[in-house]
Structure formats: structure tokens, C-alpha cells
């Protein structure tokens, strides 16, 4: 009995190892490993590519050890370590085989990324003679992964957090470095001490590692006590803490664009715009359960409305200010939502998805068509969109000349023109916060409940007195309004609009971020937008593999956490307190 179990656990370890090896080989062959190896985790010590491949071996070892513990009657450290060693070895064995074969046969005709650079990266520049490094490194990593299981929690968790943070810093070190160096003086010196051109310096990595490990250890030891202390604070104290937390967040949010530079500000604006679209689709799809695959149409309509109303180019119609155009754009988008909603009222499920998809494509094709080119500029799009001005706009003089922004108090002085991403940041973030608040209020209202009832069972909702026509139309209209606001801000951010930027993929991105964040969850939309839009924008290295990672993320999410990163029910609502209050009475 015991014997067969042992065989099983050996075979299980090999299987896990081979699976890890397949993942490693895949990452190598799609070119990710090589791209990652251009970035350092620790300067002159370890590249990101090596880090990722080693992490796969460590994970294989850890999983194999855990599997062994589950399979054996009397698991011990030695058998677990052996399993880890075996799994780690096999996870690297596939890559080893790949290097050996690759040295004999040219497989580059099929696998474009099987370049000499990849081979030398895998063998630490030793060539085929140094290929033994791979299985050894794999086996050692697997062993370490397995041994980490026998560490006490108090050691393992800080270690894990520190390594995770190091990985995170390795990905974003370039951004931090640029931001800090821009500040000059002390910050510049610190940045140069902590970060190299391509990653972290040795002392930098050591400092981060120690710091995060210490914080994590401290929190796991004292965190619970601190939480209870805070909970036991008098009401005034708790409010005070909240005010302080709010002030800190507000301070960071307000100050960020001043130090971040245009690139990061622009990424945040784009994330905020996707949050706006996400919140809009969250109303139709997340709350009311009406799948809309043409959602980008409302974004386009918001953008084109602002474009046509404010542009000083040849297609500009009214030359009004951005501030006057915004509410109009929202209203026009709302009307479009109504127009879309009316014909598809009785359409359900899959058919609805196709019908709305058609709507999205129609809007994009019409906007970019030659047929309507004299109104919408056709493929040339609409350019010369007036920047928002805090102050008084001068008269429109002639085509292609922007209106001048004068100060509110002195007509001779220039006003504040919000032309840079850093200044649009404030508009976008404020809008996202406002719309999140509106979404939350809507969800807690009778309308929100009616939407959710329709999502759950529309026949029953109707039998309970919910007017389906009215309620569904409102879902389309309010969702469209939010996306329209996003589009309007997008138009001013870029200063021009083209129908080609309103592709179906935008709608799919928005739907994906809702699914990843958690259907119907408002914080979920924010988390989803940051994860699916923000991270790939910031990580220029991986942008090539964006959709690969998207797909992997979605599949993993659906398997491991189908309710999303931040599902809606985890934050129980006021109802909870009210009900608890009355039952205690």
C-alpha cells in the first residue's frame, strides 16, 4: 500500500515538473523570456527572465511537495524535499532538451523566437557545454520551493511577500526611477542608489527585501491586535483616523501628476476612462444582465459630440467650450442608449450580444465612412479639439486657429488651459470618482434592485410589478451616459478623434475588465481597469504579449475565482447593519 503510494507521489512530482517545464518552454518560445531577460531584477545578478523561469521551478517544487504531503500516509520533510527536487529537475529538463536539440537542429524556421539570444540566456552565456546549469538550477529551485513548505508560517509569509514585492519592483523600477530622478537632489541620489538603468541595484534590492519582509512579519504578528485596537477606539477616534486616511489619499491623488510626468498621468487618465466605461457597462451588464458588445459606440458618440461641438478645425460646428459640451455629450450618448435599447428590448441572451455588436460596428463604420465624411471627417477624423480652459475663451476667429484662453479676472492675461495629460488627469479622476458614487447610489436604489431582479429572472421581476421597458431603457441610457462622458474626456485628452480607435476590441476589453473585477461590483470595475488596462500600459516590455496575458488571466480567473477579484457581496451593505440593529433590539 505504502509502496504504491510512493510510486504515485513520484509520478505526481514528475507530472507537475513536466507541466511547469511546458509552461517555461512556452514562455521561452513566444519570446517572453528573452524580452524579460533585458530587464534586471538585481543588477549584475539576476534578470527578470531568469527570475520568472526559476519561479516556475520553485512553484513546481512547492506544488509537488504539497501533493506528496496529500498522497503519503506519513509525509516527512525528506520525502517532500525529494518530490520538490524531482519536480524542479523535470521543470528544467524540458528546457535543457530544447537547448540541446536547438544546438543541433535549426528550429528557428518554425519558432521565430528560438534565437541564439534565448539559448545563451538559458545557459547563462555558456553555450551548449554549459547546459547542465539548467537542470541543476531547476532542481535546486524545486528543492527550495519544497523546503519552504516546512518553514513556519511566520517566516514563510514575509519571505513570500518580499519576493513578490521584489518582482513587482523589478517590473516597475524604470517608472519609479524616472519619477524620482526628475525630482533631482535627494530623490535623484536615492533613485541612483536603489535603481540601475535596467532594474534594482544590489543594495536597493536588499533594502526592499528587508523592508517588506520586516513589515510583513510585523503585521502578521501584530496586525490582529492593531485591528482590534482600532475597532475599540471611540467613535471620534475612528472618524479621525478615517479623515487622516482620506487626507493622505487625497494628497497623493492631487499631487501625483505634479511629480509623475506626462506618461504616468496619461496612463492614469486612460485607466480612469476605462473605469468610466466599465462603470457604464457595469450598469447594463453587471446590474441588469444585458450583455452589450457594442458598448464602444457610446464612447464614440460622446467623443464625436465633443469633437463636433468644440473643434476649431474644419468640422467644428459650434465652437463652444469643453465645459458646455460635456453635458451635451452625455445627453447625446443617453439618447443613443435609448435608440439602441428600444429595438432590442425583447431580445435576450446571445441574440442581444449579436444585436448590440452590430450597433457598435454600425456607429464606427458610419463615423469613418466616406459617405458621412463631410460631417464626421471620415477616415481623417476630427482634429483640433479645443482644450478645456479655466477662464474665458476668446472668440473663434478662423478655422485651424485655437481659441485663446484668457484669465477669468484679467482679460489681458492667459487663463489656465488644461492641455497636458497631467491636467486632464484631474478631470478624468474626478469624473471617475463622481460616476462611481452615482453607480453606488443607483445600486442601492429601487432602480438598482429592479435591475438586479431583471438580471436574475426577468419574467418574475415583471410579475412583481417591474416595468421591463422602462427599467431596461434606463439601464441602457445611464450606462451609455457614463461611457459618453468617458469618450468626451478622451476627445480632449487626445485632441482629435478617429473612427479607427473605436474598435470592437475596446468593448471586449471593457467586458473583460468587468468580469475580472467582479460582475456588478463597483470596486471590481476599478480593480479590473487597473489590472487589465493600467498594468499593460505601464509595462511597455509586455505590451507585445498583452492579449496572451489577457487570455491567460481570464482563463485562470474563470477557473480559480469566477466571482472576480473584488466581488460585490464581500462588502455587505447598510442593510446588514440595519437588520442586525433591529434583531438585537
Amino acid at each position, binding site marked *: 500500500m505504502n509502496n504504491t503510494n510512493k510510486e504515485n507521489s513520484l509520478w505526481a512530482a514528475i507530472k507537475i515538473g513536466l507541466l511547469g517545464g511546458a509552461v517555461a518552454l512556452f514562455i521561452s518560445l513566444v519570446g517572453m523570456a528573452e524580452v524579460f531577460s533585458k530587464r534586471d531584477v538585481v543588477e549584475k545578478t539576476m534578470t527578470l527572465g531568469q527570475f520568472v523561469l526559476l519561479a516556475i521551478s520553485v512553484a513546481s517544487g512547492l506544488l509537488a511537495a504539497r501533493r506528496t504531503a496529500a498522497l503519503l500516509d506519513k509525509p516527512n520533510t525528506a520525502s517532500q524535499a525529494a518530490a520538490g527536487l524531482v519536480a524542479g529537475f523535470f521543470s528544467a529538463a524540458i528546457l535543457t532538451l530544447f537547448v540541446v536539440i536547438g544546438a543541433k537542429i535549426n528550429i528557428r524556421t518554425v519558432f521565430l523566437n528560438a534565437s541564439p539570444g534565448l539559448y545563451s540566456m538559458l545557459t547563462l552565456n555558456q553555450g551548449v557545454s554549459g547546459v547542465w546549469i539548467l537542470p541543476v538550477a531547476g532542481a535546486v529551485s524545486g528543492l527550495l520551493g519544497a523546503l519552504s513548505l516546512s518553514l513556519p508560517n511566520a517566516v514563510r509569509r514575509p519571505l513570500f511577500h518580499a519576493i513578490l514585492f521584489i518582482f513587482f519592483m523589478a517590473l516597475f523600477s524604470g517608472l519609479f526611477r524616472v519619477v524620482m530622478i526628475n525630482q533631482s537632489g535627494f530623490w535623484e541620489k536615492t533613485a541612483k542608489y536603489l535603481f540601475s538603468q535596467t532594474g534594482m541595484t544590489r543594495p536597493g534590492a536588499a533594502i526592499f527585501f528587508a523592508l517588506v519582509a520586516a513589515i510583513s512579519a510585523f503585521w502578521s504578528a501584530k496586525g490582529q491586535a492593531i485591528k482590534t485596537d482600532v475597532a475599540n477606539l471611540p467613535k471620534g477616534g475612528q472618524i479621525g483616523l478615517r479623515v487622516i486616511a482620506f487626507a493622505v489619499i487625497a494628497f497623493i491623488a492631487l499631487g501625483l501628476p505634479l511629480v509623475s510626468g506626462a506618461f504616468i498621468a496619461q496612463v492614469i487618465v486612460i485607466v480612469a476612462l476605462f473605469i468610466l466605461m466599465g462603470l457604464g457597462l457595469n450598469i447594463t451588464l453587471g446590474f441588469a444582465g444585458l450583455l452589450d458588445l457594442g458598448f464602444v459606440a457610446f464612447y464614440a458618440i460622446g467623443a464625436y459630440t465633443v469633437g463636433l461641438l468644440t473643434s476649431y478645425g474644419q468640422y467644428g460646428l459650434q465652437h463652444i467650450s469643453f465645459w458646455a459640451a460635456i453635458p451635451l455629450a452625455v445627453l447625446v450618448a443617453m439618447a443613443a442608449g435609448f435608440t439602441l435599447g428600444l429595438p432590442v428590448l425583447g431580445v435576450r441572451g446571445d441574440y442581444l450580444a449579436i444585436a448590440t455588436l452590430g450597433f457598435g460596428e454600425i456607429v464606427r463604420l458610419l463615423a469613418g465612412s466616406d459617405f458621412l465624411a463631410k460631417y464626421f471627417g471620415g477616415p481623417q477624423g476630427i482634429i483640433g479639439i479645443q482644450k478645456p480652459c479655466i477662464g474665458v475663451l476668446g472668440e473663434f476667429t478662423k478655422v485651424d486657429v485655437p481659441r485663446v484662453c484668457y484669465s477669468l479676472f484679467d482679460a489681458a492675461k492667459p487663463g489656465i488651459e488644461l492641455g497636458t495629460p497631467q491636467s486632464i488627469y484631474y478631470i478624468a479622476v474626478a469624473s471617475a470618482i463622481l460616476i462611481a458614487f452615482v453607480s453606488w447610489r443607483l445600486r442601492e436604489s429601487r432602480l438598482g434592485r429592479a435591475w438586479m431582479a431583471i438580471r436574475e429572472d426577468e419574467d418574475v*421581476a415583471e410579475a412583481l410589478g417591474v416595468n421591463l421597458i422602462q427599467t431596461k431603457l434606463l439601464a441602457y441610457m445611464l450606462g451609455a451616459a457614463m461611457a459618453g462622458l468617458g469618450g468626451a474626456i478622451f476627445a480632449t485628452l487626445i485632441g482629435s478623434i478617429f473612427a479607427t480607435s473605436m474598435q470592437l476590441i475596446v468593448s471586449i476589453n471593457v467586458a473583460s475588465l468587468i468580469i475580472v473585477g467582479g460582475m456588478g461590483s463597483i470596486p471590481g470595475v476599478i480593480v479590473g481597469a487597473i489590472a487589465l488596462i493600467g498594468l499593460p500600459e505601464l509595462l511597455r516590455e509586455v505590451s507585445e504579449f498583452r492579449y496572451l496575458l489577457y487570455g491567460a488571466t481570464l482563463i485562470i480567473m474563470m477557473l480559480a475565482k469566477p466571482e472576480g477579484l473584488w466581488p460585490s457581496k464581500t462588502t455587505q451593505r447598510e442593510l446588514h447593519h440595519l437588520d442586525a440593529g433591529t*434583531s438585537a433590539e
Partner: protein
Amino acid sequence: MTAILTTKNVTKRFGGLVAVNSVDFQIPDQSIVSIIGPNGAGKTTFFNCITGFGKPDEGEIIFEGAPIHGLRADQISHLGVSRTYQNIRLFAEMTALENILVGQHTFLHASWISAVLGLPSVRKEEKDALNEAKRLLDFVGLKGHGDTLARNLPYGAQRRLEIARALATRPKLLLLDEPSAGMNPSESEDLTVFIRRLRDEVGITILLIEHHMRVVMGISENITVLDYGEKIAEGSPKEIQSNPRVIEAYLGRGAATEGMEDAHERHQKKGG
């Protein structure tokens, strides 16, 4: 006693199948009336016709003197007809209280703008609605389960929550589709008492579809029997129990000596 609901010649077809065949039927105000019949006799289809789930192909349905057969389900609900479902249809991903609050939809008037602005009138309305929802929850014996997701409630509690949700629409006529399905004898006994309370204390007229003969015979003032979509008998429980056509419908010809209860159970086994 005046009739709260009258159907005349109601017919519903699905393709070639006549599910309900020109049924004339009356429910006296403040009464408890049952519809029985073998599986597939058209009972639920008849319910659907009354509540607007599917419009009857022919005939009239008059509720409190006005025709309702052309109306949408939400309009019929406004007039005071509510129902539960044979296979429970709660809003599974919503809490028990939210389920009941949806039932109150018609009686809340806050527009979405005033809800977004959080006007005092909206707050008051929501607070009242919540109190009413809690009252209904207590009324059906689910006190303290308000924040449980509907799908996490035990089976019996789900049945009761469905009734609470139906009551939230403040019905004058309540249609219960096999409310005792899956209940043990003591639970069915409680249900019988509860249904009587609804009529006696709240003054709601009750129309039941029921398979448990003990419940049907114990509670109904009047019973209508459907078979193959047609009304084959009508009368008091006593009359129905001894009606040869009814026994025949349940058992087939020549088995009229057996008791209805046993016979019905056998039928159920055969059918299910």
C-alpha cells in the same frame, strides 16, 4: 359573495397542443380555492394566463370587474394579483430582504435622479420600505435571515420567502403554485395554518395548485379539477372526493374504489 376573478372560455394553445381548453372559472372574494389535476393537466398554464406570463389565445379574464387578459404582467401585478412558482424562482444572488424589496417596487416612487442625490424623501421611503420588508420577513417566520442570499436559504425557507415577496406587492388575490411541494407532513400542516391566516387576518383571496390531498381537502372551500386542459369537475372537497370523473382522471377507468390519497401518490410516482 361576489367573484374577485372570473375566467370565461379561457383557452391556451402551444402549437397543436391545447394546454387549457375553454375553462370557465370563478373565485369568490375572500375564499380559498384549489385547482387540482394530474401532471400536465394545464394547471400552471392556467396560472400563467391569469398572471400575464402568456396571454390566453381565447377567452376573457376579469379581475374585480375589469378585463386583464390583454395586460402585461407588471400591470396585472399593480392591480393586485401576485403569485409564487412551482419550481422556486427567487432572485438567487440577492439577499432575502432585497427579494422582498423588489416586490415593493410599485409602491416606491423615487426617480433615479432623486436617488442619486439622496434626497430626504428618498431616504425616508427606503427606510419605510426596509421596515415593511422586515415585517414581512418576520410574518413568514424568517426573522434574522434578511441578509442571507436567497440561494443559501434552506428549501422550506425559500418557499416562505417567495410568499413574503409575493405579499410585498400587496395582492388582493394570491396564486400559490404547489406551495407544499417537498414538505413533510408537519411542515404542510404549518403551511395550511399559515394560508388560513393570510385569508382571515390579511384578507387575501387564495388560489392554490396543490398535489398534497391532505392540504387541499383540509383547506379549500372550493375545488376545480382540470384534466387535459379541461375543467372536469367543480365543487366542495366532499363532492370532489366522490366524483367518479375525478377518480377516473387520476386512476383510469375501473379503479374508483381506492382512496384519492393513495391513488394520487401512485400517480405521482408513475409521473415523476
